[in-house]
Each structure stands twice: as C-alpha cells, then as structure tokens.
C-alpha cells in the first residue's frame, strides 16, 4: 500500500523548482539591507535650522533705500568682505532680507580712524556680481556657469558668454568646491563626493589653455585651496590615522596637507602634518600657515599647534601650541595674527613673527568669550577682529580694530550696547 513512486525526470524538475523557490525566499529574507556607503560628506546631526532674525539671502533688482538700510545696520550679521590695502579702509557688508528691504548693505570703515560711511548698495555692488550659479575668474575673462538639467553640469565660458567646454557631474561622481586660481588660468574642484566612488574621488584641475581637465590627486579630499599667487594648489586629505579616530567627529576632516606646484605639472612639492585642520596661504603665496591637532598629555588629540610651512625650502616652524582651538590670518608675509584663549577662557589677539616665533600681544579682554581676526591692513598695521560675548553661532559680532601700541577701537556698532 505504501508504494513509493520512483522519481523520474519530471519529479526531479518539480523538486528543483521548489527548492529554488525556497532558496530564493531564504536568501531574500536573510540578506541585510546594505547600508549606503558613506558619501564624503558628514551626516549633520544638528537640529533643524531655527528661523534667523535676518535671512542671509541676496536678491537683485529691488529698489533699496540707503536710509532704511542704515537703520537696520546695527552690527548684526556683518562680514568684513574686503580691505583696501592702498587706502587702509575696510568694507563691512551685511545681507538683509525683510518685508521692507532686500539686498546688500555695506559700510566703509577707515581702519586708522574708525570713521564710517554708508555705501549705497548700487555703488557697493558690481553689476551682476552675485549670481549663485556663476563663478567668475579673478580676471573676469572666464566664468563657470552651473546648470541643473538634465543633470548637474558646469559650462566653462569666456567673457563673451561663448562656451568653451562642459563638465558633467556624472563624469566625476559629483563635483564640489570649484575654485579659480588667482591667475585665472585654471580652476580646481573635487570629485567622487557622491556614492563614495573611489575611482573618481580626488582633486581635479581644469586647464583653460589646454581646455582639458586632469586629476592631480586621488582619494578623499577634505579641503583644497590655491595659494595667493595662484601657483600652488594645496589640499587636506586623510591619513590612515584619521580613520582610526573617526569616532571623534570633530577630527574627521583633519588630515595631511599636501602642496602641488602648477608650474611643474602639479607635482607634489611637499606633504606635512598628520592632523591638519585649517590652512591658509600667505599673501605672496610662498608660505602656508596651518593648524595641526596634536596629542596632549592624556594621549588624546586635544592640543592645537599653529605652524608655518615654507613651500620652497620645506621647513616647518611651530609658532604656538595651545589647548583651545586658535584662529589666525596672515599679517603680511612674515607674521600671523592669531587669536588664542588661555585656560581661563580669556581671549587674546597676538602678532606672531614667523621667523623667530616672537609674540606681540595686541589685546586681551576678559569681557568677551571669543575674538577672531578677520582682516589686516598692511599700510597701517591694523588688525580687524570680531568679538563675541557668546559662543552661540548666530550672536552678533562686534567689529574692532587694533594696532600695535594703540588701544583697540570698536568700529561697529558705534555706540556701546551696555
């Protein structure tokens, strides 16, 4: 009664179909969803943005009443946009949008005397200066125009608007940080930012003379910038050490500083540091100032050193080492203006000589939580800095100016708020 039917070909086929189905289902359920590869950027864990009192946006074409502008210029959200070294004046600019007014507001400040004068927006802003989709070369001979359709791409155009070349984002798996060099003969950008494409990750330059691009560095690039004279292209890229301490998100964009020489086919001139967080080129382009994060007595990366690299010779000099993160700008080619904070949190602004590491303290003020140098007028040796009583990001800054041997002067706002 319990006859067993001998399996023939048909039975085997049926069994095979069933087993395949079962296996497919098991595989489909067993596979974990791949987590998306980390793109080069960091996941922002901050809160959603809270409405600002002043929205930073630039709009063109609306009539602007300079008088109304002046009323709103009480020092909030100003930026030092330029310093005229010849005249020793600085331009403070604010972007304000409200129901009544929109556009730029600028004020010229004489850094020697502190005298202010309002600049009507029509004069303070060049025609068609600001278009978020256009990046003009310093000489004005070329421009990069961004487009979104059908995919993100950039058109390289000459001053007459004639297109010279096209660069598509897909070719580079995402491009970012486009920057002209000072000479205006080439621009750089980083690629491979999307989908973590390792093949396309790197630093690229586009040479206008040759009308082609080339990859000058491979791998993840945290930051890149040109030297002031446009000759050197520097970038910060990760070292193996960075990945080990990636749990400390504050150090995730720190790496080694490399410098490439555009006069020598972008060959690497030098590579310094392990945990460089910031770097700036000197005015003549021959040196690089940078901040490196070092290990402290506890073995943690919690010390900051301000260093200078001389590109030609390759020497590196440490100017100052401190716990709390400093800020600096160049004051000529031989000095840095550095803001430091002691262990009691008292900020100071000092001049550091690159050659002998000597330090000249310009101002110390325990009334403020932080001070940050934003400009240096070479003619009068005046340092412009911002001062804040709060560490919050959107608190208004006060603009001050100080020169060696003279008391600091508040530039803006003019009257005390106390």
């Amino acid at each position, binding site marked *: *009664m319990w006859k067993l*039917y001998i399996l023939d070909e*048909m*039975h085997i*086929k*049926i*069994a095979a*179909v*069933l087993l395949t*189905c*079962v296996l*497919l*289902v*098991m595989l*489909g*359920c*067993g596979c974990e*969803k791949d*987590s*998306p590869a980390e793109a080069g950027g960091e996941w922002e*864990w*901050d*809160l*959603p943005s*809270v*409405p*600002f*009192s*002043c929205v930073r946006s630039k709009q063109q074409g609306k009539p602007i009443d300079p008088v109304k502008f002046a*009323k*709103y210029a*009480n*020092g*909030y959200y100003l930026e030092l946009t330029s310093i005229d070294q010849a005249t020793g004046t600085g331009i403070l600019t604010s972007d*304000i949008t*409200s*129901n*009544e007014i929109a556009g730029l507001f600028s004020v010229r400040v004489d850094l020697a005397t502190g005298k202010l004068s309002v600049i009507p927006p029509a004069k303070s802003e060049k025609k068609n200066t600001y278009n978020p989709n256009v990046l003009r070369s310093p000489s004005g001979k070329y421009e990069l125009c961004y487009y979104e359709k059908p995919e993100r791409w950039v058109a390289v155009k000459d001053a007459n608007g004639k297109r010279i070349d096209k660069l598509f984002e897909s070719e580079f798996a995402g491009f970012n940080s486009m920057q002209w060099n000072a000479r205006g003969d080439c621009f750089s950008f980083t690629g491979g930012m999307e989908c973590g494409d390792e093949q396309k990750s790197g630093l690229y330059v586009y040479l206008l003379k040759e009308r082609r691009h080339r990859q000058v560095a491979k791998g993840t690039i945290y930051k890149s910038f040109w030297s002031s004279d446009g000759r050197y292209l520097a970038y910060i890229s990760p070292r193996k050490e960075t990945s080990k301490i990636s*749990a*400390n998100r504050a150090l995730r964009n720190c790496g080694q500083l490399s410098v490439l020489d555009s006069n020598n086919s972008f060959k690497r001139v030098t590579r310094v540091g392990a945990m460089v967080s910031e770097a700036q080129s000197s005015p003549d382009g021959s040196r690089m100032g940078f901040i490196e994060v070092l290990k*402290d007595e*506890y073995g*943690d990366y*919690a010390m900051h050193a301000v260093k200078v690299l001389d590109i030609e010779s390759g020497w590196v000099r440490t100017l100052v080492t401190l*716990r*709390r993160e400093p800020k600096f700008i160049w004051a000529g080619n031989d000095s840095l203006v550095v803001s430091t904070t002691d*262990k*009691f*949190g008292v900020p100071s602004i000092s001049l550091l000589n690159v050659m002998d590491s000597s330090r000249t303290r310009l101002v110390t003020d*325990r009334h403020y*939580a932080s001070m940050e140098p934003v400009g240096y007028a070479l003619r009068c040796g005046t340092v412009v800095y911002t001062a804040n009583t*709060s*560490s*919050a990001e*959107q*608190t*208004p800054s006060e603009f001050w100016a100080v020169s060696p041997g003279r008391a600091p002067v508040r530039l803006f*706002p003019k*009257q005390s*708020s106390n």
Partner: protein
Amino acid sequence: MQNKTWPSRRLQLGIIVVLAVGAALQVFLPPLTREGRAEKLYNDSWFIGRKADVIEEIRPGRADVAIKKLEAALKLSPGNSLYEQALVLQCPKDKLPQLLKTHKFGLKAKRFAAGFALKKDWENWQPSSRIAVRAPIPGMPPLPGTPGPTHTDPDKLLKRLHELSKLDPTNGLPHYQKAGILQRLGRTNEALAEVKAGNACAVVEFYTPSVTDTILNSLMSSVFIDIDFTTSARMRDTARFLTDTANDRLRRGRVDEARTILEDCCRMGVKYATAEPHTIITFLVGKAIFSIGKKDLDPLYRDFGMNDRLEALKQTDAAFERGIAQTKRHIDGSMDRLMTNMLRPLAEPFHIGYSAGTAANLLVLLGLFWIPAAVRRRGHAALTLAPWSEGWLARMFLAVYIPVFAVFLALVMVGAGRYSELLGEYGQFGDTFYVAISVLIGICQLVLIAIALKSLHRRYDEQTGERTSIFRFIFKAPAAAKAWTRKYLATAMAAQIVFLGCCFLILTIIYEPIVGAHPWQIGRFRVTSISAEQALVRSISTELQATGFAQISEK
C-alpha cells in the same frame, strides 16, 4: 462500481468556502471582546483626527469623528489612560477645559492635558537660536523679525509651569522650560537653579500620549507625537546660555562654578537624550546639548587636571557617538517606513483585494484538478481525486491535503488583511517578504498546475499513440487514462504539500527572527509593543545612563 470518496467534493468545497468566509469576516468584522473593540476604535481614530495634519491632503482631518470613536472606546474600556490621553490630544484647545470638566480623567491624562495646554502657550514665544536679547542700540529700530513682546505673559507662564512641576514632580521637563524663560528674562541664578532641579528629577518626559509603535516607527514620529522643534531649539538656547554663563565665571577665575554649570549642561543633555518617549529626535537634541557643554568642559578638565571626571566625560561622549552610528544605520533603513506609515490608510483596501485574488487562485487550482474527474464521471469513467484506490489511505490523504491547503489559505487572508499594519510594523523587510512569498506561491501554483497537466497530457498521448491537444485530453480522455492519472496527480499533490510545508517552515522559523513575530501574531498593531526605533533609543539610553558621567558626583 462508482467509487465514493471521503471527504466528498461537497465537503471539500464546503471547508474551503467556510474558511474563506471566516478569514473575510476576520478582516471586516469588528472584534468580539469589549477590549478588542475599544482598541480598534482607538487605532482608527489616529488617522482621521486632528493630528493627521501630515496626511491631511490624503484624508482630511475630522476631529469630531475621532473624538466620538475615542469616547466610545472609553465607554468600552473605562479608565484606560492611553485612550484618555488620545482624547485630550484630539480635542481642540478651546474645548479642552470643558472636556476636563465633563470627563473624569486619571492622573496621567490630567498631567498630559496640563502639559499639552502649556505647550500651546509656549508656542507664542518666538523661537530663536540667539541668547538673551541685548539692550537695543539707541536710535536703532529692532531688526525685522526680532522677537517682540510675547503673546504670553512670562510670569503667568512661569506660574503655570510651577504648578505643572508640582503636579508632575518626577518630570524634569517643566524645570527646563522654566529655565529657558528665566534665562531670557535675564534671571540667571534662577535659571541655573531650575536646570539643576530638572537634572535632579528622575526622568524627562514629554507631554504626549504613549503611542503605538506603528506610528513611532518613522523619522517623523516627533511630528505625530508633538515633540516639537520649538522646544528642542529652546533647549539648545538654554545649553548655550549655560556655557556662556560658565565661561563668564571661568574668565573671572571662578573655576569650580564654571565646572558645575558646564556639568549641569552635559547632564541636561544626557537627560534629554534619554527622555520618554524614546525617539531619535530627542536623542539627537540631547546629543547636541551635550556637545555644547562638552566643548568647554573637556578643555577645562584637561587644563585643571581633573582626570577622573575627564575619563567619565569621554565615556559618555563615546556612548553618544556609538548611539549616533546606530541611529544613522536605523534611519538609513527607515526612510521607506516613513512613506509606508503615511500611506497606510490607503493600502488596506488594495491589499485585501490582493489577498482575495490569491485565495481565488488556490480555488482555481483545486478546480482544475476536479475538472478531469467530473468530465470522466459524466463519461462513466470513474476517477476519484485520490491517487491511490479508495480506502482509508485515500481518505487520509485528503484529510491531510485539504486542511493544509485551508490553513495556508487562512494565513494568507489573515496576513493580507493586516497588510498595511504589517508594513507599518515591520517596514521594508515585512513588506518584501510578504510580497515575495505571495508572488512565489502564486507562480509555483500555476507552474505546478501546468506541470501536472502537461505530464498527464504527455502520458495520455503516449498511451493512445496519437498527438492530441491539451483541451481534448482534459475533456475527452477515456477511462484508460485512469492508471497514469493517479500517479501524476499524486505527484502534483505531493509536490503541493511539500511546497506548503516549506512555506510553513519559512513562516515559522525564518520569518520570526527577521520580523520579530510569527505570522499568526501579526494582527492589529499592538499598543504596547516596542517599535524598532524606541527599542534602539532605549538601548542607547540605557548605555548612556550607565556611563561614568551620568553617575558622577557634583562635588
């Protein structure tokens, strides 16, 4: 002699029909118990009430209908605090005082009503990330958008917060909210004291009803349960106020005071990150607050050689970082859940129809096997469905085959009727698995039918020595086909049973570890079960609270 089979075809059909009807009734019929009916009313009220703002375009909010359902649920299950809180949540603010008078709510609902009502007044404060507003510069008008006079008198608000903290003494949230107001009024010492008092409370709990995990299981959970960004932004303001105050003390040389204030800030961050109900949003806010405090506390510890405290701070920071990595992975897998939760109300009718189609497919399968037998009987060729000759073995075979098929049918109907809940409960895995299984079942059934028929047809042709079409075989086959028909029908039936057995095995063994429950447990979503998000944040919270910093002495 006509062979009679047992169970008869009528009985087989009857069983199938009864089971199908039973499954359909389970979908459409309300629960039989009072608790079950109350739970259904509560669940239904969620997506048609005032809090359905996010999906208002899909189904406009009808708070009155939601309120009626909740009142009916409370009649069926009086004193249920979950339903009471949901009723408070759905009630328009202007009718809330009347509601509190006419309904006798329990303490939890009263507390929630008080906190929820305060929240509405809190919204009248302009959210801003700036600290205390400076004295205006003489001659200058305020900036456009600068917070002006508030709609709510701050002293009245403080008084109400004070009453709330007395009503709810174990909750730190009212103290933090008071600190935020006091800080903006420039009453620094009082604000610091309130932060300390908030940190001393056992928990931080938001004034929102405990909600089901189906709704929580998405990034937008805070939208649904009213943990608003305004409160979170103000908490960040309070954190910055604390660090600014601490740094000010430090610059004056008062190191211990600065340290204490910064530690309070970090503790507030830990407390907020572990607030009830556990959501990713509150965890992230807590992390942001902790980071604000840590930025200044860490160098202070190092500069003044406070090694033990530094070590504890680092442990807590590492725990936060691990939590962030975990939440990031969770969020990456959760984006789809957001959409499925929002589309949940639309999904159900479609999937009920889909399930009905699957059931009909099974019936067609059975019918196809019956057709040859029925035709042959008409042609006086007795052929039963039993693969072997009549007898107890044939009856046994049918007794096994039909019930297995019927159970599977019932499972399909039950699961399909809860398809939308399945999506909400178990997200993409449940969705993918369920659809894959259903499609596979359908395809395999059709394949088996085709194989069996083709095999029968081929053998028939071999027997008759002529090539016939499949339709001729089905409708005109003589009794001589009986012998091989038995064999290959048996093969097809046996294959069906094996396949069903495998499906059952998969459903029981593999489904559970992936989805977290057996298929027959997946029913209406449970109000008390823990969602993946809550479980994740709860585990992170446990780790945070166990780190050294949370335990560290203030002295």
